[in-house]
């Protein structure tokens, strides 16, 4: 295994590429800030969705299990953070305790969801996971009685920002003579976490487990015949995917300072799935691209449509808000029409497609 990694590991050219990516990542929050801090926030959400999309990619892309309730794990992570770092219960634990805890609990929920549904295939699994996502959301919405656990639809306010000692991520501070705003700090934290998650993903992909997942995806019966314990391996996919969702949820809570069940609707699960498929299922760079594009596109349209209509027709013909989602939907349709395997599929997948098209 080690030899494999080294073989595909960075060579001389790769180092330059990595350095370049590093420089770009470092520059993004400051360049984006020229267009306004809102763009930094959008970048942050984009990275958050990268977490989520990578997590879902393990379940859908690697193991081939269609999960429409992924947002449930995101919600679990978010609420774990919110409950353990807010005045709601008066508990204020530091983030490095809560984030792993959230990941662990989300992981547990992943297994909980996974175990009864192992027998199901394809679309049956899809609808059950969808149901599971709704069940979690509805429970979060209603668990303010008989005992007030989640505070119901009112949500939880005043959640602590991420804090290291006295260094709070919520405020602007001067570091090395450069003024760094709250969203910019979160950006760097998110990038660090993202790099970690990407490394885990890459290693997983090339590991025994990763190959087992792919085997199940391609042919479950054959995989079983080869001696793969399909039950445990599938559960592992759910658990791993879920824990990424849990981490994302925790960071979301800290960044927003407020959570309520409406953030975890079915539409969110669908959006994340769209990111995975649009980018290129099972291919890490593709999934990242998908997540970034689908977060940025609606926002870019928010900025772009109004001036464009003014320029083209000299007045507003259709509300920009109505057009924004319309264009988003059309983009999904068009990309799928012309690049059915996603914008950036893995080379292996592309070959398979070419074969099956014959």
């Amino acid at each position: 295994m080690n030899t494999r990694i080294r073989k595909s590991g960075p060579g001389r050219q790769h180092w330059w590429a990595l350095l370049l990516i590093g420089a770009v990542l470092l520059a993004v929050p400051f360049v984006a800030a020229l267009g306004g801090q809102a763009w930094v926030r959008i970048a942050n959400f984009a990275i958050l969705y990268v977490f989520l999309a990578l997590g879902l990619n393990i379940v859908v892309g690697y193991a081939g299990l269609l999960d429409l309730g992924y947002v449930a794990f995101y919600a679990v992570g978010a609420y774990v953070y919110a409950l353990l770092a807010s005045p709601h219960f008066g508990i204020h634990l530091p983030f490095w305790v809560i984030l792993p805890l959230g990941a662990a609990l989300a992981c547990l929920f992943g297994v909980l969801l996974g175990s009864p549904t192992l027998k199901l295939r394809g679309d049956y699994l899809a609808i059950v996971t969808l149901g599971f996502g709704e069940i979690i959301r509805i429970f979060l919405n209603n668990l303010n009685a008989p005992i007030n656990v989640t505070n119901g639809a009112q949500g939880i306010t005043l959640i602590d920002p991420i804090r290291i000692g006295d260094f709070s991520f919520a405020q602007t501070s001067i570091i090395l003579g450069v003024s760094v705003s709250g969203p910019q700090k979160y950006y760097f934290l998110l990038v660090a976490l993202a790099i970690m998650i990407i490394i885990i993903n890459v290693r997983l992909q090339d590991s025994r487990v990763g190959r087992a997942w792919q085997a199940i995806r391609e042919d479950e019966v054959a995989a079983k015949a080869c001696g793969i314990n399909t039950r445990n391996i599938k559960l592992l996919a759910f658990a791993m995917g879920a824990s990424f969702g849990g981490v994302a949820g925790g960071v979301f809570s800290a960044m927003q300072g407020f959570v309520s069940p409406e953030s975890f609707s079915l539409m969110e699960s669908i959006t994340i799935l769209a990111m995975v498929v649009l980018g290129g299922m099972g291919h890490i760079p593709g999934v990242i691209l998908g997540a970034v594009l689908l977060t940025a596109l609606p926002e870019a349209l928010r900025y772009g449509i109004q001036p464009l209509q003014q320029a083209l027709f000299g007045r507003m013909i259709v509300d920009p808000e109505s057009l924004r989602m319309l264009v988003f939907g059309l983009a999904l349709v068009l990309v799928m029409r012309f690049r059915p395997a996603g914008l950036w599929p893995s080379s292996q997948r592309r070959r398979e497609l070419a074969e099956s098209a014959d």
Partner: protein
Amino acid sequence: MNHLRIPGVLVVLAASVAVIGCGKKEEPKTAAPAAAPAAAAPAAKPEMVVKIGHVAPLTGPIAHLGKDNENGARLAVDDANAKKIEIDGKVIKFELLGEDDQADPKTGTVVAQKLVDAKVAGVVGHLNSGTTIPASAIYNQAGFPQISPSATNPKYTEQGFKTAFRVMANDIQQGSVIGVYAVKDMGAKKIAIIDDRTAYGQGLADEVEKAAKANGATIVAREFTNDKATDFKAILTKIKAKNPDVIFLGGMDAVGGPMLKQMKELGIKAKFTTGDGGCSPELIKLAGPASEGVICSQAGLPVDKLPNGQKFVADFTKKYGQIQIYSPYSYDAVMVLIDAMKRANSVDPAKYLPEVGKTAYDGVTGKIEFDEKGDIKNGAITVFEIKDGKLVTLKSEGGAMAAAAAPAPAAAAPAAAPAPAPTPEAKK
């Protein structure tokens, strides 16, 4: 049939936008600074542009309410511009930046940041409590006032932000008035309560329940639905079996309309009451004749009874058509901001923010004053009845009345009603 042809045109249009739209994201960079220094106008009096942000959902299920809010704010800005207000020797031209938060908390914070970037002087919004609360932290940090015309979740002003205000009575204030009214004036002994499980519906229904219980009524059923549901027959059948005198709905007009019709079909005779979310012409439109006799409440004084209100109703209907619910409040919210700027003789948020807290303004919804937390003081509540397809005022529980009514439920359930005495941590 004519408008069925539109989609084709749109698809082409949208497709072209999709292609070009992506490359357009750099645009605001140049647009924003260009608008700000427009101060140097060649007119006799120097002119200055002051931007006011407005946020509400303009897409999604309650987009119609969002548009209504925005129109209210827009009318206020137009009225203010017509007056050629002078502040600090300059004629001020107000500009409204309307944003869509899709009723999504995440989008809410992005949009909030966008307004901070655009250097607005203040914000009117958001519509939902769910977006108002996370955005309020961002406005607080930026240090400019936010006045929500419609967020009723008590938590919004309990965060200790000195920038957070609302011109709408919160759930606690409104819920107790309806609860007391149902028992005292309508003589209800058995009450059934339904809520739509949104922050608004749940909060209001809980307060009604408390107030009704404190005044001696029994809650015979507490049922739930959701804000996207259209079929309520199952819960209504259950309620019918309990035979209540009054049914209260904590929810919006889109839920109330079909619910009233289904009550009639099931032969339920109980009186129907609801809060401001259902107290709209929309409810009458949706429920038709089934809305006759509905008792509902709105925060504030009846708009058409106030001298300013009549003009507002006439202007608004002429420009935008029917008022939905909250546009008078968003109108007032803008006016309160402008009024504070005038008193401070400055459009700098740091200078005029303290003045917002000292507001004593005669708005189209009544007299507006804020308490220490930023809630409207003695928020008046008006009770209406629907008669002949119109909202008819029954009574107004203004100022002193509301204050007298509030302590009753507070005594019964001291833990849950912190409204009368602001808690120490509320002040920063």
